[in-house]
């Protein structure tokens, strides 16, 4: 009886996983074996390993890496500083607030800010640096992406810093560790799980960014996400699009395993 009721509660969860996780993955794997004319083939996989797609993969990884690295660089000190402030919940809220606004709206806002006659260029002009092209450059792409992903990096790091037992810091100080050593030997290793979670939350979506590549980078940055969008919406070559998606899923799984917790928590 009790196991039956438990199964009943499982239904929404299982339904969700089955319909929106398992079924789509099976579908893309299935589609990846068909070419444009609907013939069963492995050509898509062969084509993926041609220079065009390999270069695209490389550039996707490079930009995703840059975005993750800069996010971490900004987010860690921010989270650290947050835990030290008086009204940390309020500050945290203010940092998370922008993520409630739709991504597309934020991208459009940056179109206005970074434009030739935008606010940023007007500012550069007044302080004497002079207007320059900001929109449609690598810089603007990485900058806007980092801006969008920062809350996802700050949150897990903030949580792991919060969980840190302060007595460990006192102990370190008592034993004569300098603030830098304390950070390097105590704080950072103990918050590594938060850093890993943050990197996962940023790197994986960054790999398949596609709207920003067009709006902010003007298609000067081509990622695998762009290629998938093209294949599904323009070429209608669902096979190739699915193949790239399969590849991304595999990479993401590998990345999760590599950065995941190694502890086995299962109790038999």
């Amino acid at each position: 009886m009790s196991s039956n009721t438990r199964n009943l509660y499982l239904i929404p969860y299982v339904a969700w996983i089955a319909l929106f996780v398992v079924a789509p993955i099976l579908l893309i794997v299935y589609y990846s074996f068909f070419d444009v004319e609907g013939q069963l083939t492995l050509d898509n996989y062969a084509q993926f390993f041609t220079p065009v797609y390999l270069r695209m993969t490389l550039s996707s990884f490079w930009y995703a890496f840059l975005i993750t690295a800069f996010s971490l660089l900004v987010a860690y000190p921010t989270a650290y500083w947050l835990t030290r402030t008086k009204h940390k919940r309020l500050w945290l809220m203010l940092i998370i607030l922008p993520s409630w606004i739709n991504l597309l709206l934020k991208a459009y806002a940056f179109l206005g800010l970074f434009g030739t006659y935008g606010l940023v260029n007007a500012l550069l002009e007044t302080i004497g640096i002079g207007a320059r092209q900001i929109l449609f450059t690598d810089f603007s792409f990485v900058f806007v992406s980092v801006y969008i992903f920062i809350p996802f990096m700050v949150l897990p790091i903030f949580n792991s810093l919060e969980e840190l037992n302060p007595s460990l810091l006192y102990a370190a100080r008592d034993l004569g560790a300098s603030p830098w050593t304390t950070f390097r030997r105590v704080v950072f290793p103990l918050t590594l799980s938060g850093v890993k979670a943050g990197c996962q939350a940023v790197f994986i979506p960054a790999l398949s960014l596609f709207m920003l590549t067009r709006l902010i980078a003007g298609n000067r940055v081509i990622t695998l996400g762009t290629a998938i969008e093209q294949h599904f919406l323009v070429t209608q070559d669902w096979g190739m699009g699915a193949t790239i998606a399969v590849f991304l899923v595999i990479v993401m799984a590998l990345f999760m395993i590599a950065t995941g917790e190694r502890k086995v928590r299962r109790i038999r």
Partner: protein
Amino acid sequence: MKSIVRLFVGVFAAAFALMYVTSLLNSSQGYTGGNTLTIYNWGDYIDPELITEFEEQSGLKVIYQTFDSNEAMMTKVAQGGTTFDVAIPSEYAISKMKEDDLLIPLDHDKLPNMKYIDERFMDLPFDPGNEYSIPYFWGTVGIVYNPDMLDGRKLTSWNDLWDERLRNQILLVDGAREVIGMGLNSLGYSLNDTNEEHLQEAKRKLAALTPNVKAIVGDEIKMLIAGEEAAVGVVWSGDAAEMMWENEKLDYVVPKEGSNLWFDNMVIPRTARNIDGAHAFINFMLDPEVAARNAEYVGYSTPNAAALELLPEEISGDERFYPDAVLTAKLEVYENLGKRMLAHYNDLFLEFKMHRK
């Protein structure tokens, strides 16, 4: 484990049952709605007053829905969940929908106003004999530019875009056929060329254009050019008309080497329930007076010869949007190159995008 498998199966079964019930409900609703007419059109692509007039004239209730891409429209029609009675896709979408059996042939006897359409725009390769579609609006692909930002210079040809003085000044529309077509046209080839050597030559030529290309963007191009973010844009004439409306300095030119001629045609999709009503609507829109008012409202080029005569001279005499016979002869309609060739075009376009400055 067993119960989990059973759960999975149960969930899938429930999902399919729901899908079936939905389609049943939809179709039953469609049958009862004999006095409604659902029109599926691009956003802001009809004079709304004309819909009211049609409702009064025919006694039908019009449901007006919009789409923003041919692909989205085709997907919805293919799914068949909604009963669209009239849709207005572009020509390449029409040949695809024809292949996929998504269209109902038109009954020409119910469309007496068909005779007003200019001969030039009838019986085109994407729909021989106009069996499935009637032209609604047409246009070209060309160059919109801001003479003020170019020291008053005028652009007249595709090859003008390769000028070194246009460094970082060009915005391209994000379309493989448009950009590869531009490359082919600039070399004097047809934009439907499938010769591999010609395509590779076009690719190399486009690679040389890269330093001049500021960005390759979608609909934002209208806002960016009107806001003088760049001096030159390669766009559809309809978008150009909108930009020129926003920013009076802008000018539009159809390059002398030739370019693309596109159509948006009225069709009756498979999902139609009110086929008589759909014919009545198409015929209504073909009426010269109605077509003229619509053309004035929308700002695109009308294929209706009788309507063109009713339009003021400043519209009908504008050679940028109603090019003369010499130039029109050089314009080509996109042929359906087949999925494989289209995929190849797209790969070339992707390579062009990846070419770094």
